[in-house]
C-alpha cells in the first residue's frame, strides 16, 4: 500500500506551511467551525467514534480522555500539546510540525473548546528552535484571525531544557509550573489534577493532528485506513540500516516488512543488506528478529503477541554486523543519563544495568539482570524507569539474537 499522506500535507500542496492559506487548503478552518457549530458533546462523540488513540506512546483512547477532562469539576482547565519529543529514534513530531504546524494547533484549539479550557500550552523540545519559531508564527497567524487570544483560547509556548523526562506528562506540568521536572504519583491522573492542580488534557502533537484531519473530514473518511481496532494512519520514524531513513505515514496494519522494504518507504536494508533485528518503539521498545519482522504488522493487537508495541513510532533497523549488546549498552547509557533520580529502582537500577553491560557480563549475569529489570518495571514511579529495561529484557528473551556474546566487551564502552 505504501505511503498515505493525511497527517502530512500532500506533496503537491500549494500553500506555505506557516500561512493562513495552509489552514484553508487543508480544510482546517472548516474543521474548527464544524466543531464550534456542533458543540462539545457531539465533537467528543466524534473523536470517540473515530477510534483515535494517543500517539505519544501509551495509545490511550483520546475520546475517553476528553470526556474525562470535560466532566472533571473545576473552573480552570488546561490543554497541553506535548512536543517535547526526546525519545531515541523519534523525530516524527518535528517533521510534522515543520511540514504542517497548523494541523496540531487547530487540533489543540478544538481540544480546548471541547473540554472547556481557555488556556493552552505548547511544550516544545528545547533543541527544536526553528520549529519553535514556526510554531510561534503559526500561533500569531491564528491570533490575527481572532482564534487565539485572551477572549477565546490563549496559547503559550514553553521550551524544554533538555531533559527527556520532561516529556512525561506530570513532569511536564511541573516544568511549566517552574519546578523540577519530576514525575508525580498517579492517581490522581492529569484529567482530574494536572497543570496547576486543575483538570488537564495533554496530547501528543500527532494525536492533535489526527483530530484536525478528522474534523476536516468525518469519521467514515478517517476510518478508511487502518484496522477496525486501530483506525487511521501512523507516522513512523525509521533510522539505522535502511536505504531511506526518515518519517513516513502509513496506515495501521501495514506489515513491518513492507515499511522496511517498499521503495516509497524505507527502501530496503542498507549496510550488509541482511536485517538482523528491528528495535520497535524507541529506546523503551522491543527487539524483533528478522523472522519476527516478517510476521508482524503495525497494530497493537498483533504486536502484543510478540511483547512489542508501537510506542512513539520509532523503527530502528540493525543489519547483521551490529552487536546488539553494544546497542542495549547505548540505550542503558541513555536511561542512566535521563533518569530524574527520584525513585530507587530507576535512579540506581539504570546505573547498575549500565555497569553490568559495560563490564561485558550480560549473559553471565542474566538472572541478576532479570530480577533488576523486573523490579524496575514493577516498582518505578513513571514510564521511564518502568520501560528502561524493556529492550534489554526483550533481547534476553530472544536467545537467537546472541550472536556476539563472546566479543561483547570489545564493543562496549564509550
Amino acid at each position, binding site marked *: 500500500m505504501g505511503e498515505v499522506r493525511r497527517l502530512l500535507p500532500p506533496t503537491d500542496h500549494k500553500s506555505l506551511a506557516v500561512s493562513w492559506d495552509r489552514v484553508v487548503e487543508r480544510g482546517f478552518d472548516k474543521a474548527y467551525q464544524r466543531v464550534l457549530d456542533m458543540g462539545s458533546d457531539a465533537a467528543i462523540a466524534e473523536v470517540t467514534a473515530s477510534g483515535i488513540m494517543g500517539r505519544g506512546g501509551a495509545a490511550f483512547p483520546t475520546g475517553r480522555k476528553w470526556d474525562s477532562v470535560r466532566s472533571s469539576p473545576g473552573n480552570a482547565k488546561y490543554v497541553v500539546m506535548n512536543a517535547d519529543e526526546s525519545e531515541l529514534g523519534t523525530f516524527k513530531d518535528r517533521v510534522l510540525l515543520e511540514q504542517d504546524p497548523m494541523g496540531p494547533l487547530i487540533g489543540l484549539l478544538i481540544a480546548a473548546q471541547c473540554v472547556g479550557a481557555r488556556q493552552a500550552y505548547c511544550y516544545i523540545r528545547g533543541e527544536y528552535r526553528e520549529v519553535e519559531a514556526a510554531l510561534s508564527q503559526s500561533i500569531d497567524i491564528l491570533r490575527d484571525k481572532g482564534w487565539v487570544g485572551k477572549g477565546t483560547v490563549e496559547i503559550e509556548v514553553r521550551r524544554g531544557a533538555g531533559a527527556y523526562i520532561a516529556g512525561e506528562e506530570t513532569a511536564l506540568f511541573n516544568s511549566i509550573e517552574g519546578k523540577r521536572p519530576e514525575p508525580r504519583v498517579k*492517581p490522581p491522573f492529569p484529567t482530574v489534577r494536572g497543570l496547576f492542580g486543575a483538570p488537564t488534557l495533554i496530547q501528543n502533537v500527532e494525536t492533535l493532528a489526527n483530530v484536525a484531519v478528522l474534523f476536516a473530514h468525518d469519521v467514515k473518511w478517517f476510518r478508511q485506513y487502518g484496522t477496525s481496532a486501530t483506525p487511521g494512519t501512523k507516522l513512523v520514524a525509521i533510522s539505522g540500516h535502511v536505504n531511506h531513513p526518515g518519517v513516513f505515514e502509513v496506515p495501521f496494519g501495514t506489515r513491518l516488512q513492507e515499511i522496511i522494504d517498499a521503495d516509497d518507504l524505507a527502501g530496503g536494508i542498507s549496510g550488509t543488506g541482511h536485517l538482523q533485528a528491528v528495535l520497535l518503539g524507541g529506546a523503551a521498545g522491543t527487539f524483533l528478529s528478522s523472522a519476527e519482522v516478517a510476521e508482524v504488522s503495525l497494530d497493537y493487537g498483533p504486536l502484543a503477541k510478540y511483547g512489542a508495541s508501537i510506542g512513539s513510532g520509532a523503527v530502528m533497523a540493525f543489519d547483521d554486523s551490529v552487536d546488539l549488546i553494544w546497542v542495549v549498552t547505548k540505550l542503558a547509557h541513555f536511561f542512566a543519563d535521563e533518569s530524574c533520580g527520584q*525513585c*530507587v529502582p530507576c535512579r540506581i537500577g539504570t546505573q547498575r544495568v549500565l555497569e553490568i553491560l559495560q563490564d561485558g557480563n550480560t549473559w553471565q549475569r542474566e538472572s541478576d539482570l532479570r*530480577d*533488576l529489570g*523486573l*523490579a524496575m518495571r514493577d516498582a518505578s*514511579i513513571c514510564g521511564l524507569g518502568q520501560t528502561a529495561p524493556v529492550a534489554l529484557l526483550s533481547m534476553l528473551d530472544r536467545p537467537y539474537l546472541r550472536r556476539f556474546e563472546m566479543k561483547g566487551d570489545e564493543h562496549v564502552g564509550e
Partner: protein
Amino acid sequence: MGNSITLTIDGQSVSVAEGTTVRAACEQVDTFVPTLCWHENLSPANACRACVVEVKGSRTLVASCSRVAEEGMVVETNTPRVENARRVVAELLTSTTDYSTAPQLMNLVKLSSADTDRFSGGANWEQPVKDDNNLYIRDLAKCILCYRCVEACGDDAQNTFAITVAGRGFNAHIDAGFGRALPESDCVFCGNCVAVCPTGALMGKTEWTLRSQNKWDENQLTTTETICSYCGVGCQLSLHVLDNQIVKVSSPMDHPVTQGMLCVKGRYGYQFVQIEDPTPV
C-alpha cells in the same frame, strides 16, 4: 469522619475510612509494610518504593504509602513480585550508600533477605562529610534520597525551601542551592531536616562528634521532657542526655504543638543550661 470503604488485604476483608492509604489500611490489620521514605508527619514522597504492594488490575506494583484505598480493592503484600521489588530496592540502596546508621534500611535488608553484595562494586555515593557549621553535619554518603529533609524544609513544615534535590539520575543529591555551604544558603538551622532524616546522613554536630569518638552510647542516653523557655509557642522538648550533658534536643513527633518540628533556639540553643561558669557576662 466520612464514609467507610471495604478492601481486601492478603485475603482479609478490612473496612477503613474513606481517604485512608493502603499502607494505613495494612497497619490497621497488623500487616507490616516496610517503608523508608514515608514519615508520619510528611506527605508521602513515593521515592524509595520499599512499600510497594500488588493491587489486582494494576499493571505495575503500587506504592502503598500514597495510594488511597478504594472500595473493593484487592491488595496482596507478599507476592513474588513484591518480594523481588523490595529485595532489589534494598540491594540497590546498600550498593550505593553507607547504611551503618540507617536502622530501617537494615531492617529491610533482613526482611527481604537481600544480598547486599549482588549489585555492589560499581559507582557509589562515597564522599567527604560536609562539616560547614556548628549545628549539624551532612554525611551524604549515607543519604538514600528519601526527600524527607526537602519536605520538612519545604511546605510540610518549615517553609524555608533552603534545600532541594539537584542533579539527575545517579547524580541526584540533596543540595542547598548551587552547592553552597549551609551558612551561605537560605538555611535557618531549625534542624527539622535532621529530625526526620532516617539514615544519619543529617546529624547534630554533637552526636556526630561523640559517635566519631566512640562515645555515643544509646544505652546510656536518658531523656528529659520539658518545655522550651525561649518563646510563647511553648514547644515540647525532649532533652537527650549523656553523662549529664545535653547532647541532642528533639520533640515528640506526635506532639500537638510541634509535630516534632522546632526552631533553631529550641533545637540547638541549649548550651546555656550547662555552662558551669557563673560569672555574669
